[in-house]
């Protein structure tokens, strides 16, 4: 792969950069690999970093090159992503991927109906946020390739997100990626589907064909890479047309696990803006809830964007729960405990649900047609809601699975 005189650079540098690095590769005529390392951890990891670079040079077939690495405490998965991106810039036809080993703590799989109360958005090209996100125990962590990544950084972000999916401990959180709008998003799939993703969020969905297209690509890539685990889709409704077609979108494929809504784009699309009261989006949100429930999947609310307003967040979660949503987007870890707390069933709800379920089972085993608790008649929908509350209580660790 030698082509002297070629030079490329990538990554981030500057006073405020942390956990990232800047890298330059220049192909030279001869004299082998020369590595210049400027790192705040040189005395601790200098040798290891140089070994890593040498190994990558070998892998990509670089024989003569000058490599300059300005390191701000980047971990190996970051250095790899930046290096590979620089190589891809030099040789656009490169198709080889330098895949780091999987983190052994990330073997867990997901399920279609697991808890999705909170999902924490992280910008896909900012590695410093990745490492500790799972410690805050969100139900899901979204590595975002779409709006939070500048157009020129998309290629770099894909490699970083791929490495993060493989190498970072997510501490039990569901591993999610928001891909770009189609068709760009289809390229994203090549990097994430083979590498340990649980849920793919599809932005700006306006018709079921988009979901089907993503699903077809996911199935193809899974087949090509012999991936057995389920990968779920979560379409995001962000426009008037999307709202109108929301049921068809939700029902488009069996791998949909949830339907969610993005209100910034939606309110812009209908020519208004977001208010705290939220009247302008009431129709859209209830449409999304109904479309999701009609298709048997979860309804997940938009993000709450004022990270300083915890009381506002609380009210917003209480409202979302009352509308039928089961989760909400978070843009800061401090939002997670509040989101969890107010999506949980209350102790009163749980107690009531227990009584109803017990009475229902008692009536069934005794062959009674009519169920009553005290003087109140209990009919089928009430039982269904009580069973749902019990399920949520168990998932939230508020009730033992064998509570009866």
């Amino acid at each position, binding site marked *: 792969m030698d082509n002297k005189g070629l030079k490329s650079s990538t990554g981030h540098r500057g006073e405020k950069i942390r956990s990232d690095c800047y890298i330059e590769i220049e192909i030279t005529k001869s004299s082998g690999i020369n590595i210049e390392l400027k790192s*705040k951890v040189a005395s*601790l990891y200098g040798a290891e970093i140089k070994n890593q670079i040498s190994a990558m040079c070998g892998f990509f077939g670089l024989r003569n090159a000058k490599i300059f690495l300005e390191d*701000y405490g980047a971990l190996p998965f970051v250095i790899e992503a930046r290096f590979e991106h620089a190589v891809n810039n030099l040789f656009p036809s490169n198709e080889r991927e330098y895949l780091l080993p999987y983190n052994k703590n990330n073997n867990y799989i997901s399920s279609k109906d697991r808890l999705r109360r909170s999902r924490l958005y992280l910008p896909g090209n900012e590695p410093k946020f990745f490492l*500790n996100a799972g410690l805050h125990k969100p139900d899901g962590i979204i590595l975002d390739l779409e709006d939070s990544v500048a157009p020129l950084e998309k290629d770099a972000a894909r490699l970083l997100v791929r490495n993060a999916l493989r190498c970072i401990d997510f501490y039990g959180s569901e591993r999610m990626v928001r891909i770009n709008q189609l068709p760009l998003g289809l390229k994203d799939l090549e990097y994430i589907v083979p590498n340990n993703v649980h849920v793919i969020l599809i932005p700006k969905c306006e018709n079921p064909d988009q979901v089907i297209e993503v699903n077809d690509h996911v199935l193809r890539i899974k087949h090509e890479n012999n991936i057995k685990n389920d990968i779920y889709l979560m379409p995001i409704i962000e426009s008037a047309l999307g709202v109108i077609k929301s049921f068809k979108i939700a029902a488009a494929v069996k791998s949909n696990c949830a339907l969610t809504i993005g209100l910034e784009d939606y309110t812009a699309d209908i020519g208004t803006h977001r208010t705290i009261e939220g009247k302008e989006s009431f129709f859209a949100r209830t449409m999304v809830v109904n479309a999701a429930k009609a298709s048997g999947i979860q309804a997940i609310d938009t993000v709450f964007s004022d990270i300083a307003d915890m009381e506002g967040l609380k009210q917003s979660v209480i409202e979302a729960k009352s509308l039928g949503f089961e989760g909400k987007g978070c843009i800061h*870890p*401090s939002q997670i405990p509040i989101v969890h707390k107010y999506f949980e069933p209350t102790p009163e709800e749980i107690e009531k649900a227990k009584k109803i379920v017990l009475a229902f089972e008692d009536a069934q085993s005794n062959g009674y047609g009519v169920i009553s608790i005290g003087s109140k008649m209990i009919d089928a929908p009430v039982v269904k809601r009580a069973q749902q509350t019990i399920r949520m209580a168990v998932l939230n660790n508020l009730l033992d699975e064998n509570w009866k």
Partner: protein
Amino acid sequence: MKLIKNSAGRLVPTEVNSQKQIPFKGVNKYKPLGTKAKPPIRTSVDYPENGNKNVRNLKEALKKAGLKNGMTISTHHHLRDGDILTNYLFDIIHEMGIKNIRWFPSASFPVHEHLIKYLEDGTIHHIEGSMNGPLGKFTTEGKMKGTGILRSHGGRYQAVQDGEVHIDIAVIAAPTADSFGNANGVNGKSASGLIGFALVDSEYADKVIVVTDNLVPFPCVPWQIQGNNVDYVVQVDSLGNSSKIVSGTTEVTKSPDRLLIAEYVAQFIDEAGIMKNGFSFQAGSGGTNLAFVLYLKERMKKKGIKARFVRGGSTKYLVQLLEEGLTDYILDGQTFDLEGVRSMRENPNHINTSPFTSYNFHGKGNFASIVDVAVLGATEVDIKFNANVVSHSDGYLLHGIGGWQNCLYSKCSILAVPSFRDRIPVIIDKVTTLCGPGELIDVVITERGIAINPRRKDLIKVMANSSLPIKSIKEIRDEVYSICGKPSKLEIDHNKVVALVKWVDGTVLDSIFKLKKK
């Protein structure tokens, strides 16, 4: 330089700067008794009857004080990074052609980078105090003529009383003073809160110069420094940059990870049963240390619990505790923001303390050991719970010891630290520099888990059913190494000790060696 192994297994020299050194012998094993230093005895008739000790300028005062080559000059860090006076002082000393000064500050700040040229040209021989930022780098690279000595705030008092350091001239920056030399830190444009760090100097130095930018008619009250100990008073236009003396307002950390640590700290103090009516705690100024106060406050309010006293580093957050009736007193060692200064000025229950009352090994008891729980930081903690506060894992000196060593004597000392910082592991096999023996460190709280020292069986028992992520310290280290990699050993030059870390009793706990050039 002859090195021997002390009882902590650290290599330390037996002599530096032509002074004999005693190796660390173990916690509370060495008791340097006997009267080795005495305050100078004067007669009042030798001082102006009208009480006016004003001298035209600092140079004049230094001349009157008999400044000579090789003397020890002390200063204090209550002006923090806003300190103009110390830099100005050494400009004058340099101008007078004086050499080989031993500078004995209570701490140094980045603003003192100005003094590097005087370390280079021999005006200053070495520093006994803290070597922060640029001075730390200079020292670690082996450029200082003498060997630096790091002491705790309490250890500074002890060193004077044991005659390790005889102060020839103390220069005390006084935000307010009168012509007799009475001084305080709570009034004036350069108000810094308290100035208790200068107490020992005012008592034991041969000559004491008070420098103020707010001269008031006698009497200056309150008098944290008593004029009866003062030789000369100098008026200057400005002591420092007031915005850097105390911050306008201190803010808690916004880092989600630091907040998580702070929340764990508060939960631990609560669940361990430490948080009960009449308890006491120490809080510092770091972001995590401020944040835990807020979480603890919520828990105190919820359970209707009130503290008897809180030790600061005071900030607006401690002031709020006092004003909301959640503590009876603040015993303040250092004031970090304007609210702290205001409170100390106005509230009789906001008490100024000194290293003598709080930390001194030679006191007949001190406050540090009365405190129920102290929450502190560290740059490194090892699997034996030994901790470092002065250098980073790259071997460079970065911070002073402050009151940190002294606070380890509290009933429960908690180190609240991230498990690593930007690939620099904090929880490691063996600390680069030993500043606090593990036997005094009870709990280490990181974002990845909480380790209780196996010596604290009581805490382990009481926390057995906690929802907190209690782990062994080795488990946390393993996790850190699995993320960052195992760090390689530092390449240090064992032939060159650049600084010593003293324990609170004056013995040598560890050495800082020159780093090998790569």
